[in-house]
């Protein structure tokens, strides 16, 4: 089972790859849109890459609830069960 920090770090690498955000800035309390400047299309890319990386499914109507990095990490943890 991946730890919260491991998931955050892997997600940070994805956000860095997709949106060029410094991976160190991708912390649990950061908002994708307001803090990290990840636009809606980039968010779709992050979600798809995260699904592949973590072996989870993130439904489209769930994506709008993932406002912060912490929201996404928590969803991935729950999905991995």
């Amino acid at each position, binding site marked *: 089972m991946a730890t919260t920090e491991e998931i955050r770090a892997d997600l940070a690498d994805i956000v860095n790859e*997709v*949106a*060029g955000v410094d991976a160190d800035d991708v912390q649990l309390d950061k908002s994708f849109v307001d803090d990290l400047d990840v636009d809606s*299309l980039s968010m*779709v*890319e992050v979600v*798809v890459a995260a*699904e*592949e990386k973590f072996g989870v499914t993130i439904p489209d109507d769930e994506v709008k609830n993932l406002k912060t990095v912490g929201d996404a990490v928590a969803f991935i943890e729950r999905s991995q069960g």
Partner: protein
Amino acid sequence: MSSTRVVVTGLGATSPVGGDVPTTWQAMLAGTSGIGYLDDEWAESLPVRIGGRVAVEPSEVLDRVKARRLDRSSQFAMVAAEQAWADAGLEDSGLEPERLGVALASGIGGVTTLLANYDTLLAKGARRVSPLAVPMLMPNAPAANVSLKYGARAAVHAPTSACASGNEAIAMALDLIRLGRADVVIAGGTEAAIHPLPMAAFANMMALSKTASGEEGGDPTMVSRPWDTARDGFVLGEGGAVLIIESEEHARARGAKIYAEVRGAGISNDAHDIAQPDPEGRGGTRAIKMALREGDVDPATVVHVNAHATSTPKGDIAEGLMLHAVLGEHVDRCVVTSTKSMTGHLLGGAGALEAVATVMALHDRVSPPTINLDDKDPEVDLDIPTSRRELPEGDIVALNNSFGFGGANVAVAFGSVT
């Protein structure tokens, strides 16, 4: 016709022979080939395994995150546009966005993005297809991305006429300025089609040269040989080129450096065959005549032609017929070249890269050579230098010709500026 004079004030290019205009131009004058074996794994299964990759990868120049949102064709356009914009000194020039237009073409559009996403769809399913696929692969993506970068609000055009596209974009820029719709237009063409599917298709239609692609090997730099008796098709190249086209009044007012004048453009159609040129070159002849008439050009002043000449058996001959039909006896004083002998054929980028070469030829008063012309086809009666050749002093005119699948013919006449 409007009396507005239109000039070229900036140049940019990334090509198989150089990552910018000075490098590309010097390589052309030196007769350097940019053609080589493709080292891609997929190339091994193709009947044709040579091409003209860009000399400098766009990833070496562009920001990584911005580049991953751009198809390779848009990357080339962006690299060339940034160079041209800087060269023209337009940064902080106070140009109003509503007076800045873009006319930037590609022949095939984002074909590598399209096919890569199709591979993903088949291998991993619909969920994995990039949400950026459509804005990346659409044929107006290079024009749109450049317009976004510079905030161009006058117009954003992406003419598609196959291998005439780049030259048509320049003709369109001329119109935009003469019609008063813009003061400055970022114009050009780009293509990134070195991918197994278009290469297999071109090879199967017998358009690509198969020389030097067999097991026995050979010298890839000798395969693109316009007008030579041993020519048997074109070599696919890639890259992009951009010219800043500007009203002379606007250019003079801001003290811009002026490379050349855009005297006139001619556009016609063959309506003969979807791929083959009219063997007598009648459509091309009309386009060239139109360009000269529009620019009020005396045929005796046309001393240089950057020909379309792709190294195909029929097209190269037809273009010679056109030049004889238009220039008559003056054709003897006209230095004709095909820079495709060095760069390969950039399809939608060709007309733009060759326009850059045409403008530089006028500016420096020297024609680049045609390489690999060892045994000129007896059916071609043109003065084609095999090493660089000086052009005369005085008011001179040079033509850039482009002809495309579908029948499109575009000729642009550039004039020297003293």
